[in-house]
């Protein structure tokens, strides 16, 4: 039972395992729900989904599998996927007026109508997956007359339908929680925590219970031991692109910045514009007056620093490739030379890009910088940040 549902969930990258599937069957056997689809939806959701980020994907799969779009012919009639059509039919029968039922007859009977409806749903689904909004069928559609609402199976205009009748899974209320969307500081902090490296360093201030017991047992008298406190020893250097096209991403970057500031004691940051050149600055208002030489940074911060560049990497290719390509000043050496140097000095360096990942291929300079970083460019989303921190914390 429900094997295809299970497999589709797997295919949609909802992390389900056999164990969860078996618990679902067990739960069904235990009669927790009584033959209603909504109950089944809730039950399967509680058993199979373990993270709200996957709820949206689950809803999509559920609606796809149980909408009766597929596998309804012949032998499949007895399979559970059959249910929703029955359901559709019931709903329709309950809510159609006599007149409308006659109209259905004129259209070739209920089955014919359902078939057309199914086709329409399929079309709608495809169009939806294509990225544009769902389109209402009012107007020319034969379903308009019945007030067909593509959000669910609302058939029948009269009869005030309560909210519950719209299939809950089609509302996709959990859309926000997919982990490809952007993040708030709390989430960023959690993602950045991965970078922590605990080291006991400094004055011996903490009482060391196991050490005391050990040493007491060894000596035969109470021998109190202390040890240094655990501290986060990771060193982080961040470079932020400011101004120009980065203005669109200010909020995200602010969040990343504040999260990183509070999470790491040893964090240094500098600003640059578009591409790294010979100078960076710490205070944006006085960027002309107080420029720090990039060469000094390369000498000052050791190769144990983890380095994160944050920028949209969207610029003219000349700004990376050519000397004098910078839009703001005359640069004696091209941007890529400086990026190369940074890479050599700091092997643990990555580039975070607030631009959506699927749009990267449309900008040539993003590709160039990505290549300069050997592919270590990550989108500024939770998942991207996770991948980035994993890369950074890898021991070389």
């Amino acid at each position, binding site marked *: 039972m429900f094997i295809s549902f299970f497999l589709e969930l797997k295919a949609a990258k909802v*992390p389900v395992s056999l164990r*969860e599937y078996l618990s679902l069957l*067990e739960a069904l056997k235990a009669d*927790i729900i009584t033959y209603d689809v909504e109950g089944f939806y809730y*039950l399967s959701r*509680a058993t199979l989904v373990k993270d*709200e980020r996957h709820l949206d994907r689950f809803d999509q799969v559920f609606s796809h599998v149980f909408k009766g779009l597929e596998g309804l012919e012949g032998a499949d009639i007895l399979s559970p996927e059959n249910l929703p059509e029955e359901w559709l039919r019931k709903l329709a029968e309950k809510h159609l007026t006599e007149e409308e039922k006659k109209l259905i007859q004129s259209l070739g009977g209920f089955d014919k109508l359902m078939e057309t409806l199914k086709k329409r749903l399929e079309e709608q689904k495809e169009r939806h997956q294509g990225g544009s909004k769902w389109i209402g069928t009012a107007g020319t559609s034969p379903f308009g007359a019945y007030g067909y609402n593509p959000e669910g199976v609302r058939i029948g205009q009269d009869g005030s339908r309560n909210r519950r009748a719209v299939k809950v899974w089609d509302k996709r209320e*959990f859309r926000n929680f997919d982990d490809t969307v952007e993040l708030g500081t709390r989430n960023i902090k*959690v993602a950045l925590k991965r970078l922590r490296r605990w080291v006991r360093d400094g004055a011996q201030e903490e009482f060391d219970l196991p050490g005391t017991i050990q040493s007491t047992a060894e000596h035969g008298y109470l021998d109190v031991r202390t040890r240094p406190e655990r501290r986060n020893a990771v060193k982080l250097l961040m470079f932020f692109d400011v101004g120009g096209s980065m203005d669109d991403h200010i909020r995200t970057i602010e969040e990343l910045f504040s999260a990183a500031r509070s999470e790491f004691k040893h964090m240094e940051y500098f600003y640059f514009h578009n591409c790294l050149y010979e100078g960076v600055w710490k205070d944006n208002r006085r960027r002309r007056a107080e420029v720090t030489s990039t060469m000094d940074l390369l000498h000052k911060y050791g190769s144990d620093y983890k380095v994160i560049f944050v920028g949209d990497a969207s610029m003219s290719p000349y700004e990376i490739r050519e000397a004098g390509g910078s839009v703001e000043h005359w640069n004696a050496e091209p941007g890529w030379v400086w990026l190369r140097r940074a890479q050599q000095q700091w092997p643990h360096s990555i580039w975070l890009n607030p631009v959506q990942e699927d749009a990267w291929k449309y900008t040539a300079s993003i590709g160039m910088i990505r290549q300069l970083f050997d592919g270590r460019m990550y989108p500024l989303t939770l998942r991207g940040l996770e991948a980035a921190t994993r890369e950074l914390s890898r021991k070389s």
Partner: protein
Amino acid sequence: MRFEGTASYVADKDLMVAVNAAIALERPLLVKGEPGTGKTELARQIATALGLDIIEWNIKSTTKAQQGLYEYDAVSRLRDSQLGDSRFNDIHNYIKRGKLWDAFAAGKKVVLLIDEIDKADIEFPNDLLQELDRNEFFVYETGETIRAEVRPIVIITSNNEKELPDAFLRRCFFHYIRFPDLDTLKQIVDVHFPGIKPDLLRAALTTFFEVRETPGLKKKPSTSEVLDWIRLLVAEDVDPADLRGDAKNALPKLHGALLKNEQDVHLFERLAFMARR
């Protein structure tokens, strides 16, 4: 044994299904959701509804899984032995029971609430895997095995500060408490303030949803905030017409209960300023 909500707790159908599944199959139920949507309250209400005792284990960042089972107080045993106290001969004197032990040894069904499991160390849930799965654990110091005769109903809440390990998740049922919609919220307020004036309720909830929908809020007010706020409104006997505040101020009356962040208050003041111009 079925949970159907209580007089003072409005449970959606999806929540009831999840709770009942967890009760019937004797697995832990993991509850997540925005802060203030009643995660912790759920466990207490299940206990009330089913007439069971509740054992609460509040997790902090320093909590170790072992503390939930038992703690062996080696230091005081050592001290007693040095002072010649005869108590130290019996190791049982120095083993302190944890909450899990209490729940397992209760001898009847209890509700065990493990609150905010994500506060603890990343490895914490992994350390409890077997204990929660098999409802038994081994006490090394005395060589006993503590086994639950009656499995407790385990409710675990999380605020999503850390990701929980897959192996742990696989053993749980999961429910995400959504922020309630207008109708459910009305029901919830009704349950808490029976006999509230309908026009005040309507005005309050409309204002509340307006506040909640404002883009750019740092901390969105949630169910517990709206309940606090309405409690204040009822106590002050505010007239629904006055609720919107005066024209030069977009902030709703007694906004302190709703907006917990001075940036959010500023945001509203700015909006008011713009509306005036």
